[in-house]
Structures are given as C-alpha cells and as structure tokens.
C-alpha cells in the first residue's frame, strides 16, 4: 500500500525575538490510503503546526526548516506557491476548529462554495452550484437548495461545521486535515459530525488526519494514533494498542488523568507539573521532568524505537506481557 502522505524529519521553527521556538521538531509519520490517523496532544504540543506545515500555511516568523513532506510521492516543500495553490483545497483539504473564522461572514454559502469549485475546475456557475448543493446534502444539511443562499451566521455551530466539511469535500480530496473540528460542539452534535465524517471518509476513500486533544474522540474515530509532546511524536501505533497498552509514560499519564480512569470520588491522577515552555525545553527527553520513570539516561535524546507496529521515544517504556 502506497502511503498518501509521508512526512520525514519535519521541523518547523518560529524565529521569535526571544529565541527559536521549535514548534515541530523532527517529526516523521505516514498516512496510508483510506487511513484515519488521530494526532493528539495538549495545547502547545505542535499538533496544529504539523497540520499547517503539510499545507504550507506556516506564516513568518515560522518556517519549515528541514524535512520532506511527500504527498503521493511528490515533495510539497519544493513546490512553487502556484503549484501549492493547485493542491490546497483540491487534493488536500483542511477543516478548522471554528468555522465562523474560516467562512466569510459577508458572502452567502453558495458564493463561497462556487468560488471553491471554480478555483480548481473550469465549470459553469450552474454546475458549480449543483455540486455545492450535492455536497451540502452529503453532510446532512436539510433542504440544501434553500440553505445554499443563507449566510454563515444563519447556521448553528454544528451546521456551520457541516458547511466547512462540505467545502472540504467539494473536490473529493485524497487527504483531509481536520484541526479540532468538533471541540467547540456539544456532545450530541459532535456525535452526529463524527458519524458523518466516518461515513464520508469510507465512501470516498479519503485519508484523514484528525487533530484533537480529546482521546475519547480519537479512540472512537481513528485507525491509528500519534501522541505529540513538546513538538515531537512520542508514541504512535494502532489505536487499540496505544490506548490499552501505552509504552510511553506520557501516553499512560494522559490516559490515567481522565476522570473515568479512577473510581468515582477518588482523587484523580494528573501528570505532575506542566509542559515546558517551547522556548526553553530541557535537553534529552522533554518529558523527563514530569516523568516518574526518568533516570539520568533521559538527559540524552531517546531514539525512535519501532517494535511490533508501535513507535515510541523512551528509554524506559512500559512493558506489557503479550498475554
């Protein structure tokens, strides 16, 4: 199976006045065809910047300083801005957390969708409109023909996110990058959106990178999970494996910090301390100051270990017997 996306040693740094901020630091991963990959981590871990880097959306002072991003075998980092524009929205689409920020409030949904269709395909306005209507129907917006002429503020939060998804689907991209798309939504609406996304991804054979801080959402949706901490992927593997038998202490820390992990009323088990400032990360393993398993060895950089389909960066991983 050829991967849709292959990211190799990607580093995205921000040159700030206070120093170099290593938002993404030597990150490598692949996304296979039709695969749903969850990218999880806490705020500031670099998961959104990883998504932006793939699409070439990192603004100065940020810059992709090294690495390769192979999309269907072609390196996106060597593409000209014109060539990137032809890919963005057409073959890779992105869905953001807050559709109110990404939809233009003064244009009707029809105008925005027709624009998106015509940006990549030479089709008549009528045909573009028909495609837009069909896309709205696909994501479960009732009476799409009438809703096309509404403005973003006339939709509820959940419906707006459906519109954003419909726009992403217009060109049937090979890959969709979704950055916390359901975080701002209510549970029942989130569940509807997850249901639609899963169905559509399977129907159109799209690969999906789902960026989220919510392990529960990723558990329900993704095939594979990647856990980021301080700009690095610290653990990656099949969802079932990673969530039931985490190797990296950070992954296990996240899992045991959720309220469901302890009996009701008992103290929760948070990870002690807080994430280091991205400007002054400790050398070696960035997690070692918060880690109960850390030793002097952790002051040196742990290499990526690959064992039985699982990747992790840790000198003292949890051991799980095969039974």
């Amino acid at each position, binding site marked *: 199976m050829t991967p849709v996306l292959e990211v190799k040693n990607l580093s995205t740094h921000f040159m700030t006045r206070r120093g170099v901020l290593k938002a993404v630091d030597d990150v490598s991963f692949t996304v296979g065809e039709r695969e749903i990959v969850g990218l999880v981590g*806490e705020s500031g871990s670099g998961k959104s910047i990883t998504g932006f880097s793939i699409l070439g959306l990192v603004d100065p002072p940020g810059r992709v300083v090294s690495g390769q991003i192979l999309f269907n075998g072609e390196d996106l980092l060597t593409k000209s801005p014109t060539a990137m524009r032809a890919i963005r929205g057409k073959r890779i689409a992105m869905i953001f957390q807050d559709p109110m920020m990404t939809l233009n409030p003064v244009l009707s949904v029809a105008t925005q969708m027709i624009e998106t269709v015509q940006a990549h395909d030479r089709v008549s306005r009528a045909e573009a409109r028909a495609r837009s209507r069909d896309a709205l129907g696909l994501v479960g917006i009732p009476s799409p023909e009438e809703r096309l002429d509404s403005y973003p503020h006339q939709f509820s939060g959940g419906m707006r996110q459906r519109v954003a998804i419909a726009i992403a689907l217009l060109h049937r991209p090979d890959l969709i990058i979704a950055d916390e798309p359901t975080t701002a939504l209510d*549970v029942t609406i989130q569940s509807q959106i*997850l249901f639609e996304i899963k169905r559509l991804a399977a129907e159109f054979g799209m690969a999906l990178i789902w960026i989220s801080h919510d392990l529960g959402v990723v558990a329900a949706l993704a095939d594979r999970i990647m856990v980021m901490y301080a700009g690095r992927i610290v653990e990656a593997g099949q969802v079932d494996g990673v969530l039931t038998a985490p190797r990296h202490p950070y992954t296990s820390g996240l899992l045991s910090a959720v309220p*469901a992990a302890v009996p009701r009323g008992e103290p929760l088990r948070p990870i002690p301390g807080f994430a280091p400032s991205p400007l002054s990360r400790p050398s070696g393993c960035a997690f070692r100051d918060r880690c109960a398993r850390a030793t002097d060895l952790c002051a040196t950089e742990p290499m990526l270990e690959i064992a039985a389909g699982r990747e992790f960066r840790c000198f003292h991983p949890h051991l799980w017997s095969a039974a």
Partner: protein
Amino acid sequence: MTNPIVEAVPLVEAVDVSRRFSRKLDYAEKIANLFGAGLEEKTVHAVDEVNLAVYPGEVVGLVGESGCGKSTLGRVMAGIMPASGGEVRWKGQPLTSLQGDDKRAMRLSAQMIFQDPMSTLNPRKRVIDLIGEAPKVHGIVKGREMRDYVASLAERVGLDATYLDRYPHQFSGGQRQRIGIARALAVKPKLLVCDESVAALDVSIQAQILNLFMDLKREFGLTYLFISHDLGVVKHICDRVVVMYLGRVVEIATPDELFDNPKHPYTQALIRELPSVSDRRRVFTPIKGEIPSPLHPPPGCHFHPRCPMAFDRCRVERPALKENAAKVAGRHVSACHLNDLAANQTTNATAEPAI
C-alpha cells in the same frame, strides 16, 4: 426520608425560578407597530420555572448543552443576576428580602469561578491585588496583613508565593485558574459556583484543578454548584447531577443512578454519545436534529422534535418532574411522559395475575 442531607435547610434554593431576556423594540419597529405591523418583543426563556435545592456540603453538577440555561441558572443562584420570576432562597430566606449586612454576607458567601480566567482577571493588576483586594475592602484582613494572607491562600491553591507581584499574562492557563480560585476563596465563601471552570484546560491540568476543588471542599466545608458540559467530569466529582435542556430541568439523580439508569431520552443520548477512551465503539448512533432556538422553543416537551420515543402527548403537554423508582427514594426525578406509561404498565403487569 432518612437521608440527613434531604432534611436540612438548603444552602441555596431556586423556587420556580425563571430568567427571561428580551430585546426591546427599536424606534423603527415601534413606528411600524403604529401602522399595525404587530411586532412583538423577542424573549428568550433562558431558565424556565426551575426548582433546585443545593444542600450544605453537597456538590451539585449542572449539565447540558450550550444554550440550555445552565450558566444563567448558576448566576441567578449565585445572586449576581436577578430572577425574572420565582425566587432564590439563601438558607431559607428569599434573596430579595435580604438587606444591609445580611445581603453583603450572602454576596460574599456565594462566589463564582468562570471558564476563562483571562477575561475575569484584570490584566493590569498584580496577583496580590487581584486576590487581596476583596478581603481588604470587606475587612477580612487588615492592609498590612494582606500579603501574608494572600501568600497563604496562593500556597493553598498551588501557586508559588514568590509570584505574587506578577501580572496574569505571565501565568499559564492552569495557573490563572488557580488565581481565580484563590480570589474566590479569599472572602471565605460557603458556596462556589464553578461555571465551566475546567473546560478550557488540558486533561492533565484539568485533573490537577479537579483534585484541588475536592481538597478545598474537605478543608473549608464548601458547597459547589458545578456547571459543566462534560458528563465525565461531573460524574466524577458530584453528589447529584442535574440535567438541563432548553431552560428546563429534565432529570436529577445521583451520578451512579443517572449513568446506570437514565430515564429521560435526552440523558440517555448524552450518556451514549459521550466519547470515552475505554469504549472504542465504531458506530455512532447520534440523535437527530439540532438544539432548537430558545427564542422559539417547541411546545410541550422541548425535546420532542429530537426524541425517538415522542408521542402525541409530548407535543402539547409539558412533562412535570416526577420521582422514579430509584434505589434511594426522592433522589431521582425526571420530566418525561414515558414515566407515566411505564407506571401504568407496571401497575397493569402487577394487576394482571390477579384477574
């Protein structure tokens, strides 16, 4: 009832409390009315005849989706927003009847902690003043003792006392929330109303803050009204959970009872759709439809347009909160017409063998 909590006087109680927000007609609309346009004020029933008692020492969770009125109810019960109908009672006394010192004491005794500390902490004040101003003004500490008092509070909530002269922007989200908590504690409150206080925090920081809330409850004998959209959090720390939908309470139960035996179809949906790490179910069974606008709530039971079990009665008659057959009597009520059906069926079932 033998439960001692039930027999005590509630610390704070909402009796048929409603809160309406209406937009007045503007001049153009008033003129249009003179010509017979018949425009009416738009009224949102944010809270619609809610009864809720919070007993001393209890942690009551208030859950629901956005726009269900949980924050409004929290504010009304904390006394920072007047009710438009019904009354709020503080230790049995209507809030509106409190005067002078009693009123001030009540105001100090009920404190709120909000979701986003950055928008509730004055960015131009230092931590020492943010926390220390209220107790100084209210004579809880003298001016020269303020620094020691604030330092002890800061340490209690897990802030480094050497940071007291810093400004809020110099802290991380979790630390800012700790400042908000210290500020609330500084006036020695009895009731803390936490409005989505951990919603914006990362999971490991959220766990730290939740543990702090539980420790403070034991240490200071606090009572909490804990408002959250996160059922997982509420289940963990609350003694009683209140589920709201479009301004009304639809179910009240203990967390175990609520999760094991949810009665209202809306509660059932909320629990079913809660994403969880342990439950890697690949199929979603979302409930249909959207949350209706509170400007035009559906008649009868507000949930009926989305409810898979709705029948004719749900479309016309508002269901009352009724007691369910629970393990602990009086601790599980829900507002659903299905309860009556179930009651009839059980009576029929018990009656049949006799025939």
